[in-house]
């Protein structure tokens, strides 16, 4: 047997002669008619990108933030992108990664909203975060299976059927997971530890007040701006919460704040850095 990883399992050439690649389309070489064609290409890499999306649950809802920057490699190409998308009445989708794929997802989600309105004419069903997440995960997994991925990492936030907060992630491979603290990209390294300080165990979000959650999230955006070279100090923030009114009925509010700035920056440490920063003065 031939043990070359590219010809693994094929009969040995010295013994059996040249392998007939046309058997059952077993070729890992291209067909003769294609020999001069350029290889077929799909999205091979993101072009204009958005960096981290950061989010967490608190006792009556979720908060999510993403900055407004679109980077073209190391060029700060756009500074007015909105990467938090409202879907239905009480769901937000935060998207990082390729911006053209983000816009494609934006259109797909708009279509989903329209179809939900048409087919649910009696209003018996509500489009909620778990449905949006399941739908997006099927789209992303399907595209990765075609080897033509949508180059994004997505966080979906909102509420479950039973009114508890919902927060789940899905990325270009179709990998999904849920947690009380979620972030994409650089945020998963820099922001998640800060968020987990507030919510050590998944269930602890029930003890977290909105103000505290917001404070930590603002700090995350600050830390990301300090250390993520592809982050900006202008960002958007969405808070979705369910409040019980005096009459006892649940009211869901969706608050989309735009053009927020990273406040209270401190660059005092900078004057003490010399050389590459490893040298202690």
């Amino acid at each position, binding site marked *: 047997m031939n043990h070359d*990883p*590219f010809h693994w399992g094929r009969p040995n050439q010295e013994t059996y002669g040249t392998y007939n690649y046309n058997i059952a389309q077993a070729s*890992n*070489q*291209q067909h003769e008619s294609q*020999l*001069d*064609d*350029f*290889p077929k290409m*799909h*999205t*091979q890499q993101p072009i204009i990108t958005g960096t981290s999306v950061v989010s967490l649950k608190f006792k009556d809802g979720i908060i999510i933030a993403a900055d407004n920057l679109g980077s073209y490699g190391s060029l700060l190409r756009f500074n007015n992108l909105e990467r938090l998308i409202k879907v239905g009445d009480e769901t937000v989708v935060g998207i990082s990664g390729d911006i053209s794929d983000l816009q494609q997802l934006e259109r797909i989600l708009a279509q989903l909203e329209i179809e939900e309105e048409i087919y649910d004419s009696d209003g018996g069903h509500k489009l909620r975060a778990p449905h949006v997440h399941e739908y997006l995960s099927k789209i992303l*997994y399907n595209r*990765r*299976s075609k*080897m033509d*991925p949508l180059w994004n990492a997505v966080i979906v936030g909102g509420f479950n059927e039973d009114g508890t907060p919902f927060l789940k*992630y899905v990325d270009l*491979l*179709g*990998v*999904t*997971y*849920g*947690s009380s603290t979620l972030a994409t990209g650089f945020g*998963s*390294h820099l922001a*998640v530890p800060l968020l987990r300080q507030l919510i050590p*165990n*998944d269930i602890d979000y029930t003890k977290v007040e909105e103000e505290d959650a917001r404070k930590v999230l603002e700090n995350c955006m600050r830390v990301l701006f300090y250390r993520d070279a592809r982050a900006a100090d202008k960002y958007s923030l969405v808070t979705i919460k369910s409040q019980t009114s005096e009459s006892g009925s649940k009211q869901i509010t969706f608050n989309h704040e735009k053009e927020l700035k990273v406040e209270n920056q401190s660059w005092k440490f900078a004057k003490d850095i010399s050389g590459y920063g490893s040298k202690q003065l």
Partner: protein
Amino acid sequence: MRTTVASEYSAEVHHVPIEHRFNPYSDNGGTVLGIAGEDFAVLAGDTRQVEGYSIHTRYQPKVFDVGDDIIMTANGFAADGVALIDRFRNQLKWYKFDHGGKKLNIKSAARYIQHLLYGKRFFPYYVHTIIAGLDEDGKGAVYSYDPVGSYEREQCRAGGAAASLIMPFLDNQVNFKNQYEPGTDGKKKKDLRYLKLEEVLELVRDAFSSATERHIYVGDGLELLIVTKEGVRTEYYPLKRD
């Protein structure tokens, strides 16, 4: 132009340009373990999900009750695992629609899953699949698969990141491998016997707490599904989170 795919073998000499292609797989860690008893079967998995050195979440269940008293897990690349289990669940639902709610035998479920896996032989589900339940005689059954559908019925099987740590322990403690009767000078093998549920649960907890110590992809929590003739029940034990 003829090209070939970039491989892990960086020293390899190529005669045609290499392509840097999108990699459709990732390793999401975690480990799973199934043990069959005389009138029960258990399937356990840790609840950590990782990618590289990042812990994505500390609680993402991966062992599921898929119906008809069959429990199932597919450990490895998380997206494929979810896709495989979703497809099986869906097919089981249609089997019931088509056959007047008839219960699917675990033996038939096992053969069907082989076909689901082999159907993607040339773009495999990158998972180690295990199902557990009770057979026609009410005896515990565990079936385990490789990523392309080769399967067998066993008394026990560990899968996923720490399979190589847990499996030898299971060989010794479940199938009594390398265990001999005291005083026979290694001549008489220890007789096989069914383990009690309490013994099995203790083995599973020990296996997972030990794997947690030695493998970075294992930890946070242990979720255990147990099938008996009464049905399926779930237990949870915390594991170390470091």
